[in-house]
């Protein structure tokens, strides 16, 4: 039924067959596999969260794991986010590696004290003597008219808290690889997943592998403008790139993959080449990661900038419920296209170009 599904205009990946012998699985299955393998591989790992053992299994990402590993390692919990985060942190201090799962990022403000005042600061407060190997998974992205308290993307808040790492994978490959890295990192990692990409498929190796925290990736090379695309915005940027290429404009797409550490050098190098920067984010504009990236460039790569920076992000409003308002709320390829054109001085385009709908079928398999 619709409240568990997500409707996107196109589903580029689900339909694409494995043509090259590589294994293609969904983002959802990639997350599940990472957790399953880590549970098998490392006795310290356990999962806790509301509903992790239920038939839905956190949108399918934990389905069946409780049956395999038992209730001690895949633990349903009461609705008591702050206390249970404290419990997870305590277990981590003793050397366990908990994965705390939240169906919606909106519930993180309840446990902000444990995250901000405890997990993030523990290593520092103890002079490095005790660390917190905790992964907090949470899911962002519009539901189905889920409104202000059930559709937030608050990843940017955590950037401001020293001691937290923030991973925000856009592809199936990165979902697994970053989750593995997060679990082995030894620090609290906020792991942020986008619900709209859960069905997307990509190449995911069967064995355990790590995508390093702090390394971004160039998803597409281009000379005219740099588009830093965060989370699901990656797919919008890819769509935008096709439309723009048709008009002879080549954008370079960067997926930072983690926001802290942020691979700023990769961004600076690209801006050095293109001189133009657009940032596409899935959260609100003000105080968001778009502002952070823009400011780093303005601080450290200013001489490369030929034009104003543009940030494509959500308006500074809570999420509305009505579909009519949701449509206006969530930006996508069109806004990226418009921004790129504006930076290229091509802003006579009064009507936005239609965005091509055919599958993009990028193989997201490189690191």
């Amino acid at each position: 039924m619709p409240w568990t599904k997500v409707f996107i205009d196109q589903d580029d990946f689900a339909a694409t067959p494995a043509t090259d012998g590589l294994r293609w699985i969904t983002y959802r299955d990639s997350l599940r596999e990472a957790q399953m393998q880590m549970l098998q591989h490392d006795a310290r790992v356990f999962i806790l969260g509301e509903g992790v053992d239920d038939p839905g299994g956190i949108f399918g990402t934990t389905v069946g794991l409780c049956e395999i590993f038992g209730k001690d390692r895949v633990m349903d919990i009461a609705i008591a986010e702050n206390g249970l985060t404290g419990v997870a942190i305590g277990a981590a201090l003793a050397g366990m590696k908990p994965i705390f799962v939240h169906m919606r990022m909106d519930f993180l403000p309840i446990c902000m004290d444990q995250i901000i005042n405890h997990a993030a600061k523990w290593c520092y407060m103890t002079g490095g003597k005790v660390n917190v190997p905790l992964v907090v998974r949470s899911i962002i992205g519009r539901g189905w008219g889920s409104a202000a308290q059930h559709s937030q993307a608050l990843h940017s808040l955590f950037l401001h808290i020293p001691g937290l790492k923030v991973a925000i994978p856009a592809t199936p490959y990165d979902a697994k690889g970053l989750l593995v890295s997060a679990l082995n990192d030894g620090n609290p990692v906020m792991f942020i997943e986008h619900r709209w990409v859960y069905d997307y498929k990509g190449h995911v190796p069967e064995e355990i592998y790590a995508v390093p925290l702090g390394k971004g990736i160039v998803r597409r090379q281009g000379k005219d403008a740099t588009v830093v695309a965060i989370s699901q915005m990656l797919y919008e940027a890819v769509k935008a790139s096709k439309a723009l290429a048709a008009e002879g404009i080549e954008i370079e797409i960067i997926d930072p993959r983690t926001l802290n550490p942020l691979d700023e050098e990769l961004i600076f190098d690209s801006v050095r080449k293109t001189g133009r920067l657009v940032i596409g984010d899935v959260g609100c504009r003000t105080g968001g990661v778009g502002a952070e990236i823009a400011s780093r460039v303005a601080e450290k790569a200013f001489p490369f900038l030929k034009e104003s920076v543009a940030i494509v992000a959500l308006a500074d409003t809570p999420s509305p419920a009505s579909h009519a308002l949701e449509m206006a709320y969530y930006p996508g390829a069109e806004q990226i296209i418009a921004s790129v054109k504006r930076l290229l001085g091509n802003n006579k385009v009064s009507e936005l170009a239609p965005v091509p709908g055919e599958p993009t079928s990028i193989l997201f398999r490189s690191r």
Partner: protein
Amino acid sequence: MARTSPRTMRRLFHTMLKIRRFEEKIVERYPEQNMRTPVHLCIGQEAIAAGVCGNLKKGDYIFSTHRNHGHCLAKGMDINTLMAEFYGRITGCSRGKGGSMHPVAPECGILGTTAIVGGSIALAVGTGLASRLRKDGRISVAFFGDGAADEGIFHESLNFAALKKLPVLFVCENNFYATNSPQTARQPHDNIAKRGESYHIPGFQVDGNQVLTIYETVKKAAARARAGKGPSLIECRTYRWKGHVGPDCDYERGCRPEKELRDWMKRCPIELFQGHILANKIITAAEINHFIKAIDKEIATAVKFGLESPLPDKTDLIKHVFFERE
């Protein structure tokens, strides 16, 4: 115990019926995918909304949760604006901004609704505090689920309300599940009503499918609150018939045992009460039919109103982030 008057019984029955028919209409229309908002139905739990709100005055405050339709209807909210909100229309109670989880109707004491589990509890204590400070004689009700009783805010709120002897009723609808998590997976003992004992808050564990029991219990608790003697905690034991969210059942998906649902359905709160009032000649079958017709008409009008109302304009998106004085 003061006997509930026939008039009140008919009113309670009418409220339950209205809630049931309303929810069933959603079940019917939801698959059309025009109500693009998650719906948390309360079929099977109607007696609580009716029994509690049956004791309230228009000015009294209630705070509900994601599962709020019954409470809103029982408190007297206009169903046109509620339905229009589900349809995401500008005529909705929240102008299409809130959807199904955040109904508002200040004119009848619904100052808004939160879908953060546990949130309703503290807010009701807050309006209770305002009432005490202003001596306005109102009482406040916090509706919440068994799941919410595990949030720390429940205890923080109980402690404060007891300390200040606030006019607040804590009404826990214990339907034994939080989403698909059974109570036993979350609570060491099945005794939510006792959780106020260390604050000396009177606790009542009642059959949540017996509207009269609820009505009578709340009546005393409400009188106590109005008399300045402080809060009460009422745990109503009940069961939801539909899945956690949406119009389907969920036992097919393994969320809970089918037999459990079947057993509870045998104790339908409406049938139980209907049997009672028919047997005691409080109402006739014809009158019931009349109720149903009138209710269905009202609901049909609401659906029509919702479907025919305009959607918000995209310029509405950025309005109402802040309150602005004219």
